[in-house]
């Protein structure tokens, strides 16, 4: 029994290694590409059948290009997927080093609403941590009087360290005030302000300007 488990684990590791080893992957791509080029180089390109195939390929490519342009909103990047497990506000987006994305780049929803910050960049995609991640903390300002406070991520976003004497109301806008982000990006609006007597600070719930579930396109703040 134990032997079978060990064998299973070893097979699993081997499969993962083979599949994800970049060298293996690149060699496979290069091999497939050489194989694909072989028939053309043997038969010559002036053959009418080859030319028809070429034109059909070009036609299909153009159709996809048109569809992509129709779906793409200007200046926006598609959201690929969300972190597969519980309790992490991470997403992957369809822009990477190929589009000049760098670690730390700020990602927005529309032009003025903060989504998160890029944490890892790969050739054609990047992963980013969003304001919903439980580890997210940043300084913000609340309302027209620009009251300083601290925002914390999580399934329910919270605003803490609001001075007790501060005049704030439900519906006040919350904007970024951390030096890691451009000043004034929108984060959400205040609701359920709690003010316990004897406490030096007030707390409130932050209603975000977007829901992770509905996020399909984001923008890179430049």
């Amino acid at each position, binding site marked *: 029994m134990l032997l079978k488990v060990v064998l299973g684990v070893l097979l699993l590791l081997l499969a993962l290694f083979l599949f994800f080893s970049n060298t293996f992957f690149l060699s496979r791509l290069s091999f497939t590409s050489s194989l694909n080029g072989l028939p053309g180089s043997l038969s010559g390109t002036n053959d009418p059948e080859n030319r028809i195939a070429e034109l059909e390929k070009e036609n299909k490519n153009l159709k996809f290009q048109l569809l992509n342009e129709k779906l793409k909103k200007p200046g926006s990047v598609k959201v690929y997927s*969300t972190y597969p497990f519980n*309790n992490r506000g991470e997403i992957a987006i369809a822009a990477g080093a190929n589009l000049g994305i760098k670690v730390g780049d700020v990602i927005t929803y529309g032009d003025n609403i903060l989504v998160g910050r890029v944490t890892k960049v790969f050739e054609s995609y990047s992963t980013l941590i969003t304001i919903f991640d439980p580890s997210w903390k940043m300084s913000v300002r609340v309302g027209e009087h620009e009251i300083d406070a601290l925002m914390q991520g999580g399934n329910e976003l919270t605003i803490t360290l609001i001075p007790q004497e501060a005049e704030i109301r439900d519906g006040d806008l919350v904007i970024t005030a951390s030096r890691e982000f451009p000043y004034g990006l929108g984060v959400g609006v205040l609701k359920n302000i709690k003010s316990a007597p004897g406490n030096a600070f007030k707390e409130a719930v932050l209603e975000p300007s977007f829901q992770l579930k509905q996020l399909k396109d984001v923008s890179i703040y430049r």
Partner: protein
Amino acid sequence: MLVFTASLILTAVVAFIQTTNWILLGNIIKPDLILVTLVTLALINHSWIRRTALITTAALILKFTPGLALLDFIFVGAALVAILLAGFLPWRQPVSLLVAILVGTVMINVDHLSLLPLIYELILNLLLGFILFNLLKLVHVSEIKLQKSRF
């Protein structure tokens, strides 16, 4: 072979769903649909080679970043431990299954433990496990009855 093929397809579909935001509750609460599915399917796929193939398929589809990452090891480890527990615990099968799901869920969250979301997730996973087990019993009653504790 039919059981394995069906399990493989189901695993692939569920793993894909796990990477989407369709099952997001709130903004970060996600039930471990794939863990529950793997543990339940292990009850009708007794061979460790088949179980390993199911876990590998799920791990490949769940990849969030290229290369081997900590998440892959955590997921594979949690799935293996949960499947082992589901088969080894000396209680009635539904109880073993629920304990296995509980342990697996905690293991998957080990690198970012947060109490409240974990409790939500545990409740959801246990409910899903209960539903899946009973569905499986309906379509595969003989296999499930044949499984006995290995103690």
